[in-house]
């Protein structure tokens, strides 16, 4: 199944995970691993359980059955969270009146695990600036988060997720509402994070164009794990053909 990663130890280990909302089965016996250095796309139609799966891996939800492990540890016992970056699905839950500047939003993540007040102020500024530069938002650093457009906010949340230079990055439809130019820039950035700095990336997306261009692993989810493996094999697989045949309700094409 996981041919390319046979020799590297799994970073994420998902074992027989099932999840129900009452009688509704959302995930059915999902098992797969993510190896260090992977760039994995999770695809599947709306409501197929992609967000739920990521939240279970991150310990935000408890599975009805099965277990998720991060770096060999069950997620409940995992401590080293500065190694994990997370961009939640389109941040509609954000309070538009919340009095935080862009800089402060990124600083929250940077300083979340600081034992005492702060590290050197200068270093702090540099890390924040660098993260904001990567998403082209450094000009807005003193703006209030609620005064930005949805796409701009999304870019800030991406900056927040990468500010700690994580080992693994989870992105739930990160480019929803982000304009094409920034998207290109953003995917180039993910590519270099993945290839040059060796950061493992797990990204939920509906964008098959991106899957073709950038990722090397694909997981296709629809309650059950329909397909998981390398991108090359995915293109030959029945799942891919079904998806294309099924048309746009599964994934959308990008120009």
């Amino acid at each position, binding site marked *: 199944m996981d041919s390319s990663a046979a020799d590297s130890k799994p970073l994420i280990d998902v074992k027989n995970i099932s999840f129900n909302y009452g009688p509704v089965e959302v995930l059915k016996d999902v098992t797969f691993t993510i190896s260090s250095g992977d760039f994995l796309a999770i695809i599947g139609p709306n409501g197929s359980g992609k967000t739920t799966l990521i939240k279970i891996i991150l310990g*935000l939800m408890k599975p009805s059955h099965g277990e998720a492990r991060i770096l060999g540890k069950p997620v409940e016992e995992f401590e080293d969270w500065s190694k994990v970056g997370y961009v939640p699905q389109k941040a509609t839950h954000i309070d538009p009146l919340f009095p935080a500047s862009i800089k*402060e939003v990124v600083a929250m993540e940077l300083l*979340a*695990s*600081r034992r005492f007040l702060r590290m050197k102020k200068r270093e702090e500024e540099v890390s924040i600036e660098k993260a904001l530069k990567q998403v082209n938002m450094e000009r807005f650093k003193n703006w*209030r988060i609620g005064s930005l457009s949805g796409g701009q906010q999304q870019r800030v949340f991406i900056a927040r997720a990468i500010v700690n230079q994580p080992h693994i990055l*989870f992105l739930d439809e990160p480019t929803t509402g982000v304009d094409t130019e920034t998207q290109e820039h953003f995917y180039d950035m993910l590519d270099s994070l993945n290839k040059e700095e060796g950061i493992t990336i797990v990204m939920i997306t509906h964008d098959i164009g991106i899957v073709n261009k950038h990722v090397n692993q694909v997981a296709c989810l629809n309650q059950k794990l329909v397909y998981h493996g390398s991108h090359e094999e995915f293109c030959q697989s029945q799942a891919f053909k079904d998806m294309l045949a099924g048309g746009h309700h599964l994934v959308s094409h990008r120009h």
Partner: protein
Amino acid sequence: MDAFFVYGFLQRALFAGIFVAVSCALLGVFLILRRDSMIGHGLAHITFAGVALGLFLKIVPLGVALVIAVAAALGIMKLKEKAGLYGDTAIAIFSSMGLAVGIVLATLAQSFNVDLFGYLFGDILAIETSEVWLSIALAAVVVFIVILHYHRFMYMTFDREAAKVSGIKVGRLDVLITVLTAVTVVLGMKVVGILLVSALVVIPAAAGLQLASNFKQAIILSSLIAVISVLFGLFLAYYFDFPASGTIVILSFLIFSFFFILKRFRRIH
């Protein structure tokens, strides 16, 4: 003017008042943004039961009130989490219970008297030295803890799930915020009384939030407004023989109104 700085009781009142006001304002900012600004009001009523119990048992009312308020605050939190009650319903239930128990106990203790009225309406100018030190110490601890967890409290208030994934133990910090709130309400009671303490928690913070464009500003502005209200409130109370508690709260309300109008005015132009 001199008397204000010469008389020990005034200085004591001022000292304690400023410390307590700052801790009220700090927590107020987080409570408002957590949509939990009624918790102060609810806990104040429960504090009434604590005070009455203290008077009834003839133990330090402040100490009994502290224990009862912390316990009730944790109870409200659990009730919200576990029983799926809406936050304001849990508060409404607990606070009316507090008031009811307080009335019964105070009557049994035959203590509907000056003592109790002091707790109800605030009596900061009569604050004792031991209480001053206790208030200052506890308020300083509250301020220290808020500063220590500043970024964590801000993160979990802004985006709870992302905060969890950054490793913040949001459950534990919820408990911490709850305990700090209960302690602050009891301290605030000594300054403005049970009936007005929630004003001291909510109004300076709400005023600060009107104008702040970032979190640091919100925190600093709110604290400043709280300090100014207490300082000038006590000053006016002393010279014009107003009740201190009412004067402090009215002042903070005037500042709030001014900022509120200023903000709308700015937006129009």
